[in-house]
Every structure is written in structure tokens, then in C-alpha cells.
């Protein structure tokens, strides 16, 4: 892993400089204050990663210390042949993609509504942001007990109340988490992440140049056309940012899976599986190998996703 960035597009022509070292010196003078931060970043993020790489080459069960030995890449072979891990890869992809997609769409809808002026806007905005401010574990607990619980949860309580309203004796009382475990977790995560997307997109909406919007209106563009040809291209970067940050965070989500289902019913995602390998199975080597595979996989997917998204938008921009 290198932190050097290769340039894809040729840099704009630099202003002509006098040949000599003064330019370079000045460049270093501006970089120097940032160096300690870079060194610190490498020390706290990359060194532990190197340690993980080394541990992943050992067969190491903490309860059998006398049997610890170097095994080369056999842990990686186990990772790729392990059914539970393969399933958790699929679960992670499904969970992340669906949560990010739904939160972006909902976030965009809320952002567009909040972009208008109406009475009590500040209050509504605060209410909408609240879920994101909740500690993830407590949000998961809230969903597990206060909402999903089939006996005293709000959902089934509401169903019963409706039933009483219309005089139905036995209302259906679904066991939400058992019948749709993955959807239950996704719903809780969407509820937490929609405000995050909304905030980013709202910032984007409010940075639209007012005179251009005005011009579009005078030229007779309808609200849909304005949205399609002006707002959406303008929001491109904000959408990309939301999707990227959201994916990075939700891939790592542990709290909801751990709390709501304890990884049962096919909801174990990668972080949860790695946790189980480390804490329950005490297989340090195998857990490290799985962690490394997660990192590599995420880099590949993140890069690929970004390319797709940005190329789409580039087409849009050229057509517009």
C-alpha cells in the first residue's frame, strides 16, 4: 500500500518558474508543517496493519500457545474455503449496498424538502438529524426492544391498536427479526444513516448558484427539468462523497448485527465474523488473515464503485 497518488489527468500547466531550487524549497516549506501529521498517520494506521500481516502468516490459537507456528499462506486458504466467511462476504455486500442506496434516496428526498422555506424548518431539521446523533449500540437496542419485539414492541402494539380500532379480534403479530432478519438490520441502519446523507446533500443544494436557478426558471424550465439538468449534476460530488463515506462506515458496521441478531439467521457480516474468529475461536492468525482480506476487498470495491459513479457523471456532464 503506497500513499503516492498517480495522476490520471495531466496537470494544468504550471505557472512559469525561475529554474533553480527556490521553487522546490518553497514547496517543501509549505509541506513541512504537514509532515508530523503524515508520520503520525503512518505510525498509527500502517504499522498495526503490517503487524496484522505478519500475524496472519501464523497458525496461532491463543489457548494452545505451545502449538504456535509459521504456516505461510494457509490461513488465507482457509479464509477462501470457509463457508461462513464466504456467506458473510455476500451478506456484507448486500447489507452495505442496500443501506447506502436507500439512505441516499431518502436523504435526497428529505434534503429537497428541507431546502424550501417553511414555518418551523429549523425544528424539523433538528428532528431529522437526531437519529444520526444516537450511539449506534443504543440505536440498535432501541430497534431490537422498543420497536421489533413481538410482545411489547411498538410495531406490533400499533398493529393491535389498529385492530382494536376496526374491531378485528386477532391481529397478525409478526416476529419481525425472525421473519426478515436482514431487512430488520437494514431498516435500523437506514434510519441512522439517512440524516447523514441528508446533511451532505442539503449542503450541496444550498450551494447552488441562485442566479442560474433563476435563469432556468425565466427560460421556462419546469421543476423536473431543473432538477434533472441543473440540480443533479451539481449534486454529483456530494452524492459521491455520501456514497463513499457511507459505504466505508457501513461495511464496518458491527453494532446492529451484534445487538439485533447476534449474527444469527444469516446476518453475520464480515466484521462480526472476524470478531467471532478472534474472540470466540481464539484463532488470531485466521482472524488477521480475514481482516487483511476484508481490507483488500474493500479497496477493490471502493475503487471500482468510484470509477463507475464518476464515469456516469462525466457522461451526464458532457451531455448537459
Amino acid at each position, binding site marked *: *500500500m503506497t*500513499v503516492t*497518488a*498517480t*495522476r*490520471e*489527468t495531466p*496537470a*494544468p500547466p504550471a505557472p512559469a518558474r525561475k529554474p533553480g531550487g527556490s521553487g522546490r524549497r518553497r514547496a517543501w516549506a509549505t509541506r513541512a508543517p504537514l509532515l508530523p501529521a503524515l508520520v503520525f498517520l503512518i505510525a*498509527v494506521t*500502517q504499522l*498495526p*496493519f503490517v*503487524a*496484522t500481516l505478519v500475524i496472519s502468516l501464523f497458525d496461532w*490459537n*491463543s*489457548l*494452545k*500457545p505451545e502449538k504456535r507456528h509459521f504456516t505461510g499462506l494457509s490461513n488465507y486458504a482457509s479464509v477462501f474455503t470457509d463457508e*461462513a466467511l464466504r456467506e458473510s462476504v455476500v451478506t456484507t455486500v448486500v447489507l452495505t449496498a442496500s443501506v447506502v442506496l436507500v439512505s441516499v434516496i431518502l436523504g435526497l428526498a428529505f434534503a429537497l424538502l428541507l431546502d424550501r422555506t417553511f414555518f418551523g424548518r429549523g425544528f424539523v431539521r433538528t428532528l431529522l438529524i437526531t437519529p444520526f446523533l444516537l450511539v449506534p449500540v443504543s440505536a440498535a437496542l432501541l430497534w431490537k426492544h422498543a420497536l421489533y*419485539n*413481538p*410482545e411489547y414492541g411498538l410495531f406490533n402494539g400499533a398493529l393491535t391498536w389498529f385492530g382494536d380500532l376496526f374491531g378485528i379480534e386477532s391481529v397478525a403479530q409478526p*416476529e419481525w*427479526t*425472525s*421473519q426478515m*432478519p436482514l431487512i430488520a438490520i437494514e431498516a435500523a441502519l437506514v434510519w441512522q444513516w439517512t440524516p447523514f446523507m441528508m446533511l451532505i446533500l442539503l449542503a450541496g443544494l444550498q450551494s447552488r448558484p441562485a442566479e442560474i436557478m433563476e435563469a432556468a426558471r425565466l427560460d421556462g424550465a419546469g421543476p423536473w427539468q431543473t432538477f434533472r439538468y441543473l440540480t443533479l449534476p451539481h449534486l454529483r460530488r456530494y452524492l459521491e462523497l455520501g456514497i*463513499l463515506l457511507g459505504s*466505508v462506515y457501513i461495511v*464496518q458496521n458491527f453494532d446492529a448485527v451484534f445487538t439485533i*441478531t*447476534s*449474527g*444469527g*439467521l*444469516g446476518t*453475520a457480516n464480515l*466484521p462480526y465474523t*472476524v470478531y*467471532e*474468529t478472534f*474472540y470466540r*475461536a*481464539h*484463532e488470531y492468525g485466521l*482472524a*488477521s488473515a480475514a*481482516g*487483511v482480506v*476484508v*481490507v483488500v476487498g*474493500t*479497496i477493490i470495491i*471502493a*475503487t471500482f464503485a*468510484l*470509477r463507475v459513479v*464518476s464515469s456516469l457523471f462525466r457522461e451526464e456532464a458532457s451531455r448537459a
Partner: protein
Amino acid sequence: MPHPRRRRPPLRGRACAATAALALLATGCAGAGGTSFGGGDALNVLMVNNPQMVELQKLTAKHFTRRTGIKVHFTVLPENDVRDKISQDFSNQAGQYDIATISNFELPFFAKNGWLHPLDDYADADAAFDQEDILEPLRESLTAEDGKLYAQPFYGESSFLMYRRDVFEKQGLTMPPKPTWQQVADLAARTDGAERGMKGICLRGLPGWGEVIAPLTTVVNTMGGTWFTKDWEPRLTAPEFRKATKFYVDLVRKHGELGAPQSGYAECLNNMTQGKTAMWYDATAGAGSLEAKGSPVKGKIGYVPAPVDRTESSGWLYTWAWGLQKASKKSDDAWKFVSWASSKEYEELVGSTSGWSNVPAGKRASTYAHPDYRAEAGAFADVTERAISEADPWNPGTQPRPTAGIQFVGVPEFTDLGTKVAQEISAAIAGRQSVDAALAASQKLAEKVAEEYR
């Protein structure tokens, strides 16, 4: 005039930033720190954060340190973290902790690895401790293969059946003094819906080797099944194991609590307290909470031994016990602490300061003869004591076993195996797969573990 477009940062750089964040995740395995280590003469104790231990922490300075002059520093962590930290510290023999709470599950392999200090000499020389008073099954389960004692129990528990006496009376039902599982299933069908929102029985369904697997394994034992034969042949698809699992899953699905795949000990305790279930088969430790002050079902509950099928008894056995690290240089002082924390005197102290229901019970015969304890915990005291006394970790079923353990198999791999099997069983309880499919998958997992021991 078009705005000059800022050049976008190249992709690879951004992917790397994301990677750096993920690398942190992958290596996120730093232990919880924050312990202040005392001087050369202070003891360091690492223990699980159960209420009884927290109580002990409060009482130590005022009573133990004042009398002996030995300072004690506690590190208190949740169960999963404490197990991990203990195995790290003990496996390296770092000697950072002199004493730790271990259970009868870890004891055999900790002792085998030479991580624990044998306690026989200390116990023999300490007449006041009265080693003979410790209940036999606990003493045995804390004795390793070499015949030496390696830990002293702080409290012990078994499992039994709790039921609502008032509901049974109203329905005109009687609970047999020693019920069989078939009788319990019939009673569950009869009490299902006895009151609005009341189910027949609460049984754990939450994935985890310490959750659904514990009660399920006791049912397997009494119906003639076993995880492994004496020669490490996995028997999860054998007819007896299948019969027991089918029985358990069917009973939960038909007359058990709603949301069973997410219900563990805590959820069932809640259901029983709130009057959502007529019966509950679980740990004897649950009774203390049900009979506590302010519990709406206090005094309404009857207690009978764990239901059986082909065996005489089927209660499990579990204990949190004090182990002394071999590398510790302060084992004499450490014994003094253990001897005090597990003493009759300490039980008296807790009884007089915060009530007898909070006493770390289930380890001494004398506790159950104590008039004050009987006055407060009489409803379940005798059943608990009998359950613990009848537990036989070496022979819990109908065939010889490769290791000791009633509701678990005594090998390090069981934490992982048990949890993975639990997820299969949990999915069967949720109706997402058949019991046969769950057991076929589990058998494969058990086969992998057995290979290492054959």
C-alpha cells in the same frame, strides 16, 4: 462564464485514505487498558463484571485490606473481554494479574497448559476455609486431570424448571415433583394462552455457546444423545441428538416465547418477570432475580428439578472460580484473598449488608443450612442445592464422554463450534431451515474439531 473546475483528487489517493481507515478496523484488537498497578505488595485481580463481583469490589477495602493490610486492585470487564484478557495474560504467563475469575469450562486446559497454581496445599493448611464444605461436583470440576485442585468457586449454579404456581392452580394443573420433558411439553400446551399474552414456556433461542446451546445440550444428554463419543466421533446427526433437537425446536415454535431466535437468558428472565410465560427452564441464578424485592412475580413461583427423559437428573453445572496465575510472585497473599472471598464469613457479610438474595451461593453446603438464607431464599434453596449436588460432569448422559462438561464440551474449540452450531439451531427455531439441515451442517463443523483429537 464557466467556473474554473477544480481538479478532482485522483482516485487511488482516496481509496488509500479509505484503506487506512479499514486497516484500523482490521487491527482493532487492542485490549481494554486503564489499570493502575499498585506497589509491590498489592494484588491484581481480573474479574467478570457480574453483580456478585461488583459487590465484592465494594467490600474488599473496608474488610479484607483493613484486616490483612493487603491492597487489592481490581480490573472488571464483561464476560467476552474478560475471557480474552485472561487467556492473553495467562498464556504469556505475564504475571500481570495474580488472580482471575475462570470457569469450570476453561479450567482443564488452563491447568494442562501449566498456567495455574495448584491450591491443595493452601486449602489443607487453611482450616478456617473448610474445603470439605465446598459442594462435591464443584470441587471435582475444578480439579484437573492430574488430580490437583486449581481453583476455588466464588459461586455455583445449575439449571432447573421455574413455573407459575398461581397459573397452574387456576388451570387446575399440577406440576410433578420430578417432571419429564414429555410432561413439560404437555403442560406447556395446556398453559399456552392461560392469560392474555402468556406463552407456555420460555427456552433460549439466541445464538451463542453460552446461550441456546446450554439448555439444548442438557435436553440432548437426557434423551440419550451426545456431541462426541468417547473416541471423538461426532454424533450430531444420530437419532437421539436429532430427537432432542427436534423436541426442543418444536416446543419453542409451538408454545415458546415470541421472538425466540433473539431470546437469551436476559430476555426469558424479563418474560417470566412480566408474566409473559408460565414456565421457564434456565439457570438457578435466575431465581434470585425473580424473588428479589419489587419483582411482580415474587412468591408466585414454584421450582422443580430440570426435566428428564432417560437420565435421573439433567441440570447443568457452572461456576465462576478464583484461579491463581502460576507466574505470580504473590501466591501466599493471593490465597489469603481467595480464602476470604470464598469464605462462609464473606457470605455472612453480604447477607448482613445487602441482603441474603445477593449472596454468592451455590458453592457451600453450609449456606443451605443457614437459617437467614433459608428464610429469604427458601423457595428455591433446596432445589438448587440438589441440582448442583446431582450434577455429574463426567457422566451427564447415557454414554461415556471424551471430556468433562454437562452443557458444553470441554475443549477450547467449543466456544467457536458451539456458537456456529447455535446459529444453525437458531435458524431452525426461526423456521428458516429444517432441524435436519441444521444438524447436517453442524455435524460437518464438529467433524473438523474432532479430527484434531483423534
